[in-house]
């Protein structure tokens, strides 16, 4: 009888599961490529005027307030933000929800701004969390090189 710890059996199962992952990556990619999306706005802007969407990008000008939305490498849709009462600087990451208006502008209904210093904190403590989990994982689990599995310390 084949052991459930048999590395070949588990490798086969893992390859099948990674195939399932790949299927989802391609399916979701197809979904994102479907209109509406920033690439569609850039190519057929007038078709979307009057529609409300959420869109993220970087502030590239503050007078007038302009959001740069990169929809493909090196290609950016520039949207003038109307009615957005916020103190932002060039380079700030902003997500806005609003209605697309003529002349590549958006009437902003709601928005969020991520201050750069908070983002540094977020990345730092996220790395710290990863160190904690890996450290505790190695404290309570050990790698069994014979069966190529992790065993809980004290399991047997």
């Amino acid at each position, binding site marked *: 009888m084949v052991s459930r710890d048999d590395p070949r059996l588990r490798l086969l199962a*893992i390859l099948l599961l990674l195939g399932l992952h790949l299927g989802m*990556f391609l399916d979701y990619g*197809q979904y994102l490529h479907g209109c509406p999306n920033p690439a569609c706005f850039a190519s057929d802007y007038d078709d979307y005027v009057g529609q409300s969407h959420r869109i993220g990008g970087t502030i590239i000008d503050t007078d007038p307030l302009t959001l740069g939305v990169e929809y493909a490498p090196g290609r950016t849709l520039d949207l003038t933000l109307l009615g957005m009462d916020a103190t932002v600087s060039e380079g700030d990451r902003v997500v806005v929800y609003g209605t697309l208006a003529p002349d590549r502008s958006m009437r902003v209904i709601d928005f969020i701004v991520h201050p750069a210093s908070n983002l540094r904190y977020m990345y730092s403590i996220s790395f710290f969390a990863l160190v904690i989990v890996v450290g505790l*994982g190695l404290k309570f689990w050990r790698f069994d090189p014979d069966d190529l599995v992790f065993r809980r310390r004290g399991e047997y």
Partner: protein
Amino acid sequence: MPDLLTHVLFVYIVLQLAAWWTDWLTPGRIVVGMAGGTIPDVVKIKLLVPPNQVEAVLGLPFSWVPLHRLGGAVVTAVVLSLLVSARERRGAFVLLVAGLTTHLFIDAFLASPGPYTYDILYPLTHWKMSVLDYDLYLSSDYWPSLASGVVALTLLGITYRDRLRSRWFGSV
């Protein structure tokens, strides 16, 4: 997402409370749940391997986003549980799924403009869970990690109070 520390500590808090009622939840198993709390953030692979580079190679539309959705995250949990010994595998899978589910749930309450959140349940549906649109915190806020840190340390202190007491004050 809120920071990863908040996710990991939140799972610790839930599982440590549960461990007060069941001996099965040993510290080693709680750590597995905490690891599960990191699973959806495997999506950060997009920073190392941008999806448009993968698209250029494959010639097909591609997105890493499913790693941060229920379907993709559960598949990741199955893969990880296959790296654990058969004796612990089922329990590890349950704990990994518990961790990743809390992660996705907490992320649904992130502040985001617009009357909807995100399609957590993909590939079952692309519905963007508008019922969870409470906008409680920003992913870059300080307070979720500080609050969960205080609660987690308190639980840790209560759980190991006897050990801490004997270490600091000697056995009575």
